[in-house]
């Protein structure tokens, strides 16, 4: 692998042990994956923030690296943590856990990392440009940045993303290279895909089938109308569920995503997949529960528009279930300025930031049944938090929150 003189010095320890260790990680990954050189990254997003995932070992490691002098050289953001940094007490999250979580964040802060704690940095102004090289690690953010924004990042692990931030570089392999961004599967969707939940369930099903592959979606009229598909919510749900059900880091949607119209974007040996129904996906992710004691919206983190929609829906109503809308702290601030947070809280709901139900110790809330509009959340909640799940649209979930039981006015479309 070719290294510049400066990079060789970093690897030799001229900039201290912390930089040396980071360069060792970045160059080892380069050797393993056959990179020819390193590439400068524009920003880094670090997963491995929740104490629930890191544990004591992760905390020890981060403290030690910070103590050795690890400092980031490019804008670096964090994935959600295990607690809302400001209102964890009000949310009944355990104190010991919160304490350890704060220690994790202190170590990251010492390295110069922004305490953004979100899986949707692109919703709070950190929007990479077309072709920008990144080292992001949260799976849904990686899929969204690659596919919808046209940026270039591999699915980094927590320590490898951090190493890239400390070096300002990552190894040039995988999705940093144009030739590796061509579709491996053509997906023809033959059933209607309309709501955000449909997009999530579709993503889950496609993820299960393609694994690490790169799907190219043909959006042909009746089933999937590109005109009415939201490049925001719908593709966010699709990306998140594909990355969870499989390990999809990049997908293309005909006529919608920036690389979909490039010449030879589909590999000649691409396999064809046809999705005739979402019923099996719904059956795998959703159970016909009646009592609902927890309603979770915001996986990935809710946008300002979603917070507005929730606030409008809840005007003049009270919720009976525990209602969490998870979002970035920055988005929460903007919603507060618009009065939407107050409206949601007035109805008895919580606008939770910095964390989400996948990484918070939700089991400590004493809830058993959850309604959500996120296929990704439905995929993780049973194993991570021991919850039973019912999937529905935002409106259906909010109905359930108000009534404390499932009482939808509409049925899933497909």
């Amino acid at each position, binding site marked *: 692998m070719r290294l510049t003189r400066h990079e060789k010095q970093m690897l030799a320890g001229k900039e201290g042990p912390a930089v040396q260790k980071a360069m060792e990680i970045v160059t080892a990954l380069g050797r393993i994956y056959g990179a020819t050189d390193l590439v400068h990254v524009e920003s880094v997003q670090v997963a491995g923030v929740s104490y629930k*995932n890191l544990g004591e070992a992760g905390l020890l*490691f981060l403290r030690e690296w910070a103590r050795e002098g690890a400092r980031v050289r490019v804008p670096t953001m964090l994935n959600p943590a295990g607690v809302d940094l400001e209102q964890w007490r009000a949310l009944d999250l355990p104190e010991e856990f919160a304490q350890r979580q704060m220690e994790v964040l202190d170590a990251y802060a010492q390295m110069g990392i922004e305490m953004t704690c979100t899986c949707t940095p692109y919703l709070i102004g950190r929007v990479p440009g077309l072709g920008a090289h990144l080292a992001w690690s949260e799976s849904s953010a990686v899929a969204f940045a690659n596919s919808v924004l046209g940026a270039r990042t591999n699915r980094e692990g927590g320590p490898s993303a951090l190493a890239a931030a400390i070096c300002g570089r990552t190894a040039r392999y995988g999705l940093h290279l144009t030739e590796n961004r061509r579709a491996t599967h053509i997906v023809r969707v033959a059933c209607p895909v309309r709501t955000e939940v449909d997009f999530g369930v579709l993503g889950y099903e496609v993820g299960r089938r393609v694994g690490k592959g790169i799907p190219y979606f043909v959006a042909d009229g009746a089933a999937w109308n590109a005109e009415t598909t939201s490049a925001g919510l719908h593709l966010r749900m699709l990306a998140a569920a594909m990355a969870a059900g499989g390990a999809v880091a990049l997908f293309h949607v005909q006529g919608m995503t920036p690389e979909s119209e490039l010449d030879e974007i589909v590999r000649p040996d691409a396999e064809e997949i046809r999705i005739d129904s979402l019923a099996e996906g719904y059956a795998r992710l959703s159970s016909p529960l009646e009592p609902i004691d927890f309603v979770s919206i915001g996986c990935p983190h809710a946008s300002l528009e979603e917070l507005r929609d929730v606030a409008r829906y809840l005007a003049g109503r009270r919720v009976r279930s525990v209602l969490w809308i998870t979002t970035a702290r920055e988005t929460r601030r903007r919603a507060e300025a618009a009065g939407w947070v107050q409206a949601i809280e007035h109805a008895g709901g919580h606008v939770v930031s910095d964390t989400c139900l996948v990484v918070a110790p939700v089991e400590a809330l004493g809830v058993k049944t959850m309604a959500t509009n996120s296929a990704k959340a439905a995929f993780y909640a049973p194993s991570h938090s021991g919850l039973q799940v019912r999937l529905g649209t935002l409106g259906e979930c909010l109905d359930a929150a108000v009534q404390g039981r499932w009482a939808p006015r509409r049925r899933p479309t497909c």
Partner: protein
Amino acid sequence: MRLRGRIIKEGAVHGEALVSPEPIGFLGGVDPETGVVVEAGHPLRGQSVAGKILVFPTGKGSTVGSYVLYRLAYKGLAPLGIINAASEAIVAVGAIISNIPMVDGIDIGQIRTGDEVTIEGEWVTVRRVARTGQGAEAE
């Protein structure tokens, strides 16, 4: 027997080989408190990786596995060295942050549990230790 591989983490160590024909996932696969392999159905289940030259084809599972290796090293329960056929990011990063000498690109079929193994940079030296019923010593 001398085998040449590719350095993942530079270093020199000497110890007894523990060979797994199957990939190892450290998160959920190895108990971070004891170093014992706990994955159901794993060929090394019940054996400790502590102080061994751990030989396996490749890593698998969650990226949090890198931190499990770090935690084992912190408690003195990590493998002395790691040899892979083809390494991947999780174990490689774990070895680097835990200072465990590691080599990949090795034909691991040449190594058996109980062999005396030395890792020195990119070189792996294997000495078969004569044991009852296992035939003559082979160099």
